[in-house]
């Protein structure tokens, strides 16, 4: 049994590394031709042989960042209520709602937003078509919330109960305990929730494909239409397999991969620092 589990872990690890090398090998023509720089900082215009993915990198970052701005406060609020104030049945109901939310397929969020949110955004702001960074960020923020809430709640609950009881014995109200004890103790857990949320937001394809508008221009406002790296891969997938246009999607994959890798790395470093600081 142990052997089986170990084998599963090894296979998963190898797959992750293999994907990295696969993208490197398949995208090699791009890297070796020396126009990597043009691809990374240029615009996208296949008609005149420009295959830069900078607008998509900006689009991805803007939409994922926006989703965090929407999702983090929302999730923190729900997590505070669930972990600190709600007791017994209320807590169970809240948590099962959150789990239910995480089970709703992405396309349902996308479709509902397409029918209701897009026209709403269009009518509220008199510029743009409603397909915009803002629209995608709002929905994506909602979408990543369940992941963040569950991690936040776990982090807040994980604070040593003895410390909590001690604080209570000193006369701290639940709000004081939350603010001065649990928040600072649970910081690494909260941070990992945010990073996981950001990773999910970066990796999401469907919401941005349906709601962000997918324009190839560099967006210069949150009401502008923009294209994410993931949506770009989905859109370009259909073109001729042997064209440079198609090969550029390996670069998109590569950039996404590196981004996730860096997020995990940051998370590890912060966590490590925190633990070390604790020991000293």
């Amino acid at each position, binding site marked *: 049994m142990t052997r089986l589990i170990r084998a599963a872990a090894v296979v998963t690890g190898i797959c992750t590394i293999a994907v990295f090398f696969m993208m490197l090998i398949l995208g090699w023509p791009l890297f070796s031709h020396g126009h990597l720089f043009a691809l990374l900082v240029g*615009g*996208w*215009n*296949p*008609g005149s042989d420009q295959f830069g993915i900078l607008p998509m990198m900006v689009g991805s970052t803007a939409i994922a960042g926006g989703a965090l701005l929407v999702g983090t406060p929302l999730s923190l609020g729900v997590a505070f209520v669930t972990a600190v104030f709600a007791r017994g049945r209320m807590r169970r109901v809240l948590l099962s709602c959150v789990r239910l939310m995480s089970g709703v397929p992405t396309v349902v969020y996308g479709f509902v937003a*397409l*029918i209701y949110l*897009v*026209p709403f955004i*269009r009518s509220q702001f*008199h*510029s*743009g*078509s*409603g*397909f915009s960074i803002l629209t995608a960020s709002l929905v994506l923020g909602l979408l990543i919330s369940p992941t963040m809430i569950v991690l936040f709640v776990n982090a807040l609950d994980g604070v040593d109960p003895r410390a909590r009881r001690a604080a209570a014995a000193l006369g701290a109200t639940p709000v004081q305990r939350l603010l001065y004890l649990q928040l600072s103790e649970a910081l690494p857990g909260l941070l990992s929730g945010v990073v996981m949320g950001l990773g999910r937001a970066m990796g999401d394809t469907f919401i941005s*494909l*349906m709601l962000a*508008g*997918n*324009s*190839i*221009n560099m967006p210069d406002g949150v009401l*502008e*239409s923009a*294209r994410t790296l993931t949506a770009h891969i*989905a*859109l*370009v*997938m*259909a*073109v*001729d*397999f*042997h064209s440079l*246009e198609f090969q550029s999607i390996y670069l998109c994959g590569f950039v996404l991969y590196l981004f996730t890798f860096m997020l995990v790395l940051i998370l590890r470093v912060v966590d490590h620092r925190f633990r070390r600081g604790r020991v000293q």
Partner: protein
Amino acid sequence: MKRIVFCFAFIAALGCCNAVFAGSALDAFKGQEGVIKVAGGTAHIPVMKEAAKCIARFNPKVIVTVAGGGSGVGIRQVGEGLVDIGDAGRSATEEEISRYNLVQVKWAVDGVGVVVSPKNSVKSLSTEQLQQVFAGTISNWKELGGEDHAIDLYDRDSASGTRAVFVKKALKKGAVNGGANVVVSNGAMKTAIGGDPYGIGYVSVGHIDSTVTPVALDGVVPTIPSVQDGSYPVARGLYSSTRGKATGLSALLLNYLLSPEGQKIVEEKGFIGVK
């Protein structure tokens, strides 16, 4: 329960292909068994689905799976042997044909029409105006006699067959502004335009219904009759390709599409038959 299922099957059978009961082009599928995988152009989907339904009703052992993906996907997947039949809303290029040894069959003709929301008062454009709208030099409906509001452009992804024909024959290879929103299928275009009173885009004429309004191009409204008699020029063939000459079930399906019954489905779905 059984009775309910039977009722549903009966109602469904009434809906289409009464030919099931008479001698018909479907007879060729008698005694056959297997799966035909079809993927590609999204304009083809309604016809392919209907054909699949009729065939499955005649002989449940023959299953036709229909996937979208766009013309580029259709050609590539059939070329690489991932599907049996690849649909494309454009003729495959010389290069694609020679690389994959494709044989293509054209079974319908389809127009590509400019559409706006039914709430929009602009109902007619010249080719020149259309070019300027899509290039972004005309960016307000006011300049076209409509409301004072910015124009929301909607475009398709670059592998779309509908887009290829639109850019070539309606825009005369004119540029499309990079700020245009990009949607992934004819259906998504219809949803986007239907919901956006200031949007302009283009769909296959077969997809035009009450949710969008066709815009006359140089005075000719894109409708099935105007595409049929050639007065509306932005039209293309709907093709299905196989790797090498079609054999087995794929050949039967393509023959069925070209039979009078198949062509009737083509017309029912808003396209123009080739026979």
